[in-house]
């Protein structure tokens, strides 16, 4: 038996022993938490930010937490990795991709003593919680800023795949933009990848050549904003603060902040208070943040900050009615707000967006 495994088993035994004694003392042995990433830790995007969150949890919880992570795990292999992590003594496992969700649903009941956290999952179970961030809140603000900065009135959107998350993000960007100028338009290129720097750069070139002067990206690499910098237009980073890649072009970024959530959930396991939940945090809870505003005038910054504050306080909801589809159908009238499930499933564009929904 390998040394680490023996240690892990001893650890579990010690914890059980401590609990049996009434748990007066804090468990001396640390909680083992496992993280499964769909991409490389160094992709500087989605998986990187989850890893940043993991390290933050280690930082905050110190000796109480020990984490393990496995990167670039293909979907067919995920169940195997989960089993191995569980065998290693992990009591909470974070599966950080939507494509892992169904395999997680299947494996969770077979390991009833392990808690599962599925990022961007859709339903919960006895030992399965889901979590996500309201990226669209950041997108709304991006739309407001884009409309203020754009001279050609065209936003270029580098989209990954036509999934609801991306579709409602595009809708929300335009919603925000239209509050400043109803004449704003958007052009979308689907690069069919979450991460492909070369293709993202090519997509950015195509959009800029077609007249867009603010670039939004739903892909993970710094390539689009770097190109925006090169071409002298503006752009928004993605998942992390990308100012240093584009000092002249960078306006702000959606910054994924999973660390606080990870700390909270690990603490809950340690304290024995973990419950399955559906956490969809936004600007208010800090699960997403906006990178510091750069390359903006003080008035523009002030305007953007006011919008952020309105969203945070709940006074402004990016999905408040009226919402009208491209085909003219009204989804909800003024006064109502789209509920979470409807937002999650949104697969239509708003009226005013001239982009065809790829079938």
């Amino acid at each position, binding site marked *: 038996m390998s040394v680490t495994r023996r240690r892990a088993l001893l650890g579990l035994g010690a914890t059980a022993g401590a609990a049996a004694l009434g748990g007066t003392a804090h468990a001396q042995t640390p909680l083992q938490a496992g993280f499964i990433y769909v991409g490389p830790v160094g992709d500087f995007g989605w998986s990187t930010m989850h890893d940043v969150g993991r390290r933050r949890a280690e930082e905050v919880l110190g000796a109480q937490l020990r984490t393990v992570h496995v990167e670039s795990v293909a979907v*067919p292999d995920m169940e195997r990795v989960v089993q191995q992590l569980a065998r290693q003594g992990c009591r909470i496992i974070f599966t950080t991709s*939507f494509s892992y969700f169904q395999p997680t649903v299947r494996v969770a009941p077979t390991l009833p003593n392990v808690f599962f956290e599925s990022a961007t999952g859709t339903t919960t179970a006895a030992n399965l919680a889901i979590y996500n961030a309201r990226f669209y809140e950041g997108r709304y603000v991006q739309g407001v800023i884009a409309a203020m900065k754009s001279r050609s009135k065209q936003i270029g959107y580098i989209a990954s795949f036509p*999934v609801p998350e991306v579709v409602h993000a595009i809708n929300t960007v335009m919603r925000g933009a239209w509050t400043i100028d109803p004449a704003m338009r958007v052009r979308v290129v689907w690069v069919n990848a979450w991460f492909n720097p070369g293709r993202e750069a090519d997509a950015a070139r195509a959009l800029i050549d077609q007249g867009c002067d603010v670039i939004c990206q739903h892909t993970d690499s710094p390539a689009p904003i770097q190109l925006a910098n090169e071409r002298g237009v503006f752009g928004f980073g993605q998942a992390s603060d990308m100012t240093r890649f584009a000092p002249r072009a960078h306006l702000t970024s959606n910054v994924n902040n999973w660390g606080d959530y990870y700390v909270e959930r690990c603490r809950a396991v340690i304290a024995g208070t973990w419950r399955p939940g559906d956490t969809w945090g936004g600007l208010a809870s800090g699960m997403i943040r906006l990178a510091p505003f750069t390359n903006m005038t003080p008035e523009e910054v002030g305007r953007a900050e006011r919008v952020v504050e309105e969203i945070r306080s709940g006074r402004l909801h990016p999905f408040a009615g009226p919402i009208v589809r491209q085909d003219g159908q009204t989804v909800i009238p003024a006064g109502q707000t789209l509920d979470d499930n409807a937002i999650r499933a949104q697969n239509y564009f708003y009226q005013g967006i001239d982009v065809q929904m790829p079938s």
Partner: protein
Amino acid sequence: MRIVLEKRDDTSAFAAVLSPVIAVLLTLVAGAIMFALMGKDPLAALSTYFLSPLQDWGSIQEIFVAATPIVLIAVGLSLCYLSNNWNIGAEGQLVMGAIFGGFVAIVTHGVPNGPWVFPVMLLAGMLGGALFGLVPAVLKTRFGANEILTSLMLVYVAELLLDWLVRGPWRDPHGFNFPQSVMFEPEALALRLVETGRLHVGALLMLVVVIAGAVVMGRTLKGFEVRLVGEAPRAARFAGFDDKRLTLTVFALSGALAGIAGVLVVSAQIGQLQPTISPGYGFTAIIVAFLGRLNPIGCLVAGLFLALTFIGGENAQIFLRLPLDVTRVFQGFLLFFVLACDTLMLYRIRIEREAAA
């Protein structure tokens, strides 16, 4: 002074067994040095890579689960490569098989069905893979288009087709518009052989295919034809073998095997269709085919061994915090040494002094 390779008159069985053993030993040494340089305990690292996957029954099952698609495809590829048909597109044929098999699962979803579903899925997968494998074969026989390019390009086409299907027509209507098909019903999932693990009927299929392949290659006229066409095409033609028909046959066969592998992956390991279903099994199978010296039994051994190292690499990430890239480097070493040591089998190495001028 230089190294001279002298072809052996016959390959001794002793050398055939010795060469992979030496290769593994050399890899252990090289790996130990690499891990030591990285500040990790070499012995712990090596035992993690090679021994940890064998430590419990569940893990051993996983080796078979992981090896199944690779070995199935490799057997088919062996036939192709022996007859000089360079099928590089097994990955695409796998995807196509998964599409066809998945279609069966999707149309029978929610409808009363029975244990016939899974075998029909397998047949559909075979059909899909075979048809897709025939495309580069036909382009080769009719137009002389090089199959390396056509089969490789078609991989991307197959992947994009799957992507479109899963985001569009085959999207789960109750899946919040996420790109995934419905979850396959139990009848559409590969039968598990054991209660406490993921070993499934695909492993049996793999063994059957390996044995059948060995019999065909070693004992039948077809096997002889395959080897003759590859080694001496003109002689084969004189003997009356039609190399064009053989091309179509081996591509269809390897495509069918890849298709089965695809169905097994989606039904045993994923449980639905998703935009991406394979981490490159079709390409790994190419390596396995050559490591196995294009021999079905060899493919089985090589496939199991490679699966062992993949799982060992995962464990290395978990137990030792070794990044995935280090695993890839280590696997590269392993492959290099195995390939180099195979030379021992075919050639005798002599050090020769340069004759004085």
